[in-house]
């Protein structure tokens, strides 16, 4: 079964929960998350609230499919502290750059540790959770399910983590604009928009026919207006395969497998280079 997160920060996020939750509930939580039993969830002011479809369980006196209200709050960082943290982040090109590339910097905690803070939750004390289900345990499987979904949302949006820690997008923006490097990130966040669909009218570029007009001379018609460029030497193997796609990092958003997209592409490119009869 698929992992809920393929980024280091998503996995760290999950690890925090798994530390203090029993294995059986985690397992059921995972299947809740992947089977669409979480009907909706919203994040507001650092608290995630969700509606989860429970199951019929006569033992608990539940005879009709219940809907439970579940909420998860991660301990907020004060806005004063946030201001200091953002100042820290904005003083480091590596952190800003990774965030620009929509990645959580692996050294992000360095911006927090000076203030004896941390970003990613790592113990029970970081959480406040509740669920309307009859299970005595907290976190229950519903909480775990919502949590797993959160983790996979984090993969594509590392800024969600800041929000979970009580820094709204607007505040993040305001704080960033206070420093030169931060401004760069802020402007990029501002312009981050979903790309517009690019409809095409043909699968391959459509060859266009022109009206018959004879402009070229007879010679040009047969040999072209200019001489051919001199032939290029054949390239052998590229020094490193799949360079083009490597620049965008691994696990592009459309890639849902746990296996590295880059390594699969490397193999695919190599087969094309070496096994296709036209490429030999």
């Amino acid at each position, binding site marked *: 079964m698929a992992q809920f997160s393929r980024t280091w920060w998503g996995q760290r996020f999950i690890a925090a929960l798994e530390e203090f939750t029993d294995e059986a509930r985690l397992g059921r939580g995972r299947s809740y998350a992947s089977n669409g039993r979480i009907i909706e969830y919203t994040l507001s002011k650092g608290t995630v609230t969700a509606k989860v479809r429970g199951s019929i369980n006569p033992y608990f006196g539940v005879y009709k499919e219940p809907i439970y209200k579940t909420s998860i709050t991660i301990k907020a960082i004060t806005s004063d502290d946030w201001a200091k943290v953002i100042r820290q982040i904005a003083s*480091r*090109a*590596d952190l*800003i*750059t990774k965030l620009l*590339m929509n990645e959580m910097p692996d*050294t992000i905690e360095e911006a927090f540790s000076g203030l004896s803070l941390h970003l990613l939750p790592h113990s029970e004390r970081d959480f406040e959770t509740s669920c309307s289900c009859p299970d005595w345990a907290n976190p229950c499987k519903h909480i775990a399910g919502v949590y797993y979904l959160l983790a996979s949302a984090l993969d594509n949006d590392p800024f969600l983590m800041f929000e979970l820690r009580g820094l709204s997008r607007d505040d993040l923006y305001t704080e960033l604009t206070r420093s*030169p490097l931060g401004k*760069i990130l802020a402007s990029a966040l501002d312009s981050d928009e979903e*790309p517009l*669909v*690019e*409809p*095409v009218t043909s*699968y*391959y*570029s459509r*060859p*266009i*026919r*022109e*009206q*018959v007009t*004879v402009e*070229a*001379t*007879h*010679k040009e018609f*047969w*040999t*072209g*207006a*200019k*001489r*051919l*460029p001199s032939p290029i030497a*054949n*390239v052998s193997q590229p*020094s*490193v395969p799949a*360079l*083009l796609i*490597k*620049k*965008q990092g691994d696990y592009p*958003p*459309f*890639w*849902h*497998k746990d*296996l590295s997209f880059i390594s*699969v592409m490397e193999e*695919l*490119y190599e*087969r*094309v280079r070496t096994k*296709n009869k*036209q*490429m*030999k």
Partner: protein
Amino acid sequence: MHIIHGTWIPEDSNEFIQRGAFYLWVETDTPAGRSRSNSNNVHPRHLAQTALTTFLMEKLGLRELISGALAHTLCTKYFLLPTVAGKPSPSFELLRYMDEEEPIEFDLVPWQVWCYQVPDIITALNDIHFIALNAAEDFQLGADLLFWHQYSQAIKNIISKDQYIPALKYQAISTTSNKGKKAKQILNFEIHPAWELLSETYENNIQRYVATMPGACTAGLNSPHDSSGLFDKESLLRHFSECLLHEIVTGTPFTQKIDQQIADTLLYACVYPYRPILMRPSSEKKLEEYKQWLTWRTNLTKSHTEAGFTLCFRLEEASPSDINNWQLHFLVAAKHDPSLKLSLEEYWGLHPRDRVETARPFGKDFEKNLLLALGYAARIYPTIWNGMATDHPTGCILTMYEAFEFLKESAWVLSDAGYAVIVPAWWTPDGRRRTKVRLKTSVRSSKGATTLSQGHLSLNSIISYEYQLSVGGQVVSEEEWEQLVNAKTPLVQFRGQWMELDRDKMQQLLQFWQTHQHEKSEMTLLDMLKIGSEAEDDLEWDHDQSLRDMLSRLHDKNAFAPIKDPEALQGTLRDYQKRGVAWLQYLEKLGLNPCLADDMGLGKTLEVIACLLKEREEEDGLGPTLIIAPTSVLGNWRKEIERFAPELRTLVHQGSTRLKDKQKFMDACQAHDVILTSFALARLDEKLLQGLKWHRVVVDEAQNIKNPHAAQTRAILKLDAPLRVALTGTPVENRLRDLWSIFNFLNPGYLGKEAQFRKEFETPIYKSNDLARSTTLKKLVEPFILRRVKTDKRIIDDLPDKIEQKMYCTLTPEQASLYEAVVKDVEEQLNEAEGIQRKGLILSTILKLKQICNHPMQFLQDGSAFTSERSHKLERLGEMIEEVIESGESALIFTQFTEIGGALEKYLEHTKHYNTYYLHGGTNVKRRERMIVDFQDPETEPSLFILSLRAGGVGLNLTKANHVFHFDRWWNPSVEDQATDRAFRIGQRKNVFVHKFLAMGTMEERIDAMIEDKKRLSSLVVGTDESWLTELDNNTFKELIALRRSAVME
């Protein structure tokens, strides 16, 4: 002649997916049988079904599994071709084989042709190109097919660099629903898996190739009723490229493992677009995936296009005291001007308000793009992050190991990924210090006993050598070497400089040295040159002074000190000729047989003559030199020897009266210095010529021995001569097979056996364009070839802007007998003629004799064949023109006779197949203008322009030509000069060579001599015509026209 054409034809379809295919067809000047009817516009000059099948199998080596299967796969297509008067005009290539003029005006009309649909386009085109390059006497590729061959190779290069991505295509579909009462427009969409080329090189290629694409490539049609026209070039090229990419990727066999890895992903759909998908995802899912893909793709292209700069990395080496302090500096270079660089150190050091101004040349959003560029680079080379934990990143520090890894690998990767990388000089190929085995050499005489005292090298020199170990050109002791091998680090400081250690290689070299160090070995000079060129990577040489001198002389041919003019030479050599003679002598002394390949017109003949004189100054009793040349130049050889070195005793071995008795021939040879003979006789009199030991054999126009299997070549190879010289004016190093054959004559074995040569050089160079192989070959042959071109700086200084040379040609027996008959006839009449009648007789005689000297056909006016066998003038012109064209130059050819102009045009265009123009009195203005523009166009291939002296004498500017031929003479120098000046005008940047043809032993030669005399005395008033000749008295005139029989050659 057959011309293979072919192009890409997209299907006629408006479907979303419009495919296409590549079709070959063959145009011919000899169609088999008449086509039955012209009603459906069948192309009258192409190979139809059966003929095409035969051609494909016999010429292109196609095979069929079941007999007759191939014919069934052929199909008919239509091409919009230039058509005049209801007939397709021949393609540009075929035109040269046909008796037709290039049309100026034409329509494009669809013609039906039989086609072969090419599978595996890249491979097939490359194979056909290779076959045509080597085999073809009777077929060649049309420019349209050449274009596709080259373009498909370019595409192949892009694909092998992995510059393409899986893609999704969003197709909007609007359907009209009829449910309910009102028809409703429903907007829907479909997402198609695909592949996409994403590469700057690709985009550049498209632009470059569109500009060179022949119209014929766009002319394919599937049906004749298609009223529409040619394809737009760019869209056709893109369609072709995309279809090809699709075919290649989806046609690649993948493994089950990969299939599993990509199951249920976008990649699976892209790889197997035709396999049904079991679970069709909902539209929303598909749209979401599409958007995710689009974001990814947008980011990929953005990183290419958005920034106005290229990120650069510069590695600065550590000091010996601080070996782990290597600095990798970050810089940017402006895209519009890569020489404009800015280091980030400098940038951040500026006051913030100055930064904006400084960053302006590097594009908008500089800082954001800078961070992103660094980030993308860091994805490939993560060490960069180490330098970014600051608000002002300027570079990062590398340890020695990191620096080594960077130099070894990451630098290449980064530069492949589009970043610029600057490494220390000692890492660059030129600056690198390598570990090698060193051969310490010295010269010994062949007798083996003592080293030659003066260090003189000679034919018999043997080179003895011993092995040493070396690093970067310095000898290293075994201990030092072992120390280096045992060093634990990949980079070491050795004698004050950093260098890389390749321990495995060093270990091998050490072992080699340990086993061989005590050997004293010997090799010949040829071996040394051969090994030196071939095994450059692992060997280096420590030559003793004499060898070092020798090598530097061999490699810097211009440094040869010019010889003094030989005393017996009647005339003076130009400076470069003196150097040429010095070079010839030097190589011969070393026992390296040379190939003198100076451009035509620079005087190779004279250099050889000077060489013969010079060696006679130095030594007595030399044996005879045999000179083998085409019949057409034998006369010129003799004339030049007579003129410049009358002292050389010359025997022309030619004609039916030649010596045939072995003993008599040998005796005669011993009594002469030079024996001149033709290629034909070299074969016919093979036994005779092999009967004695020659001092030297000179092969003039050495391209005549390019075929190693021809009887003529084999006969020449058997001649017994220690010294051999080859002369040629064609750039011999570009034609590999000729090159091998010439070297096989000069220095047998040096380039290996023929089959070996093909495998090692010819195939890799021609078929895969292997640069390393061609460099090696170039190094091998370079010392033996002296090729100076007219445009060389050093030559130009020695040459006047206009060089006039006379080309003496002998008469063929046919010409001679015609000539004698006319002379005899005239002599009788002359005594009785008076006044006007006499004048008329003289002028008509001169005209007749001129005609005979040109070609018997012109005199006989019987429509007989205009072949080179009947006139040495024509033969020689053909040979010289070949050299001109081979050297990529153009020429003007003047004649005063329209019938010769026409015949020459036919001969040069249809028999020799050069691009030829002909301007005469009857040419209309429009055609004349077009011809001149075409000829002068730098994009036009090297061409010939034939002009009648009268029509082309004035007002034309034909400066593309730097050779001017006067096929016959106008006995007025100023008229000839005026004609010559068509090429020698303002705008001419090259020296102009003027070749005036003269028939030897005839009145042409004598009138020329008279004019030269008079010119010197400047006393003769020569009119604009030839009437002054009528002033001569009878006896003088008779003498003038008499034929010197010895000047006739068979």
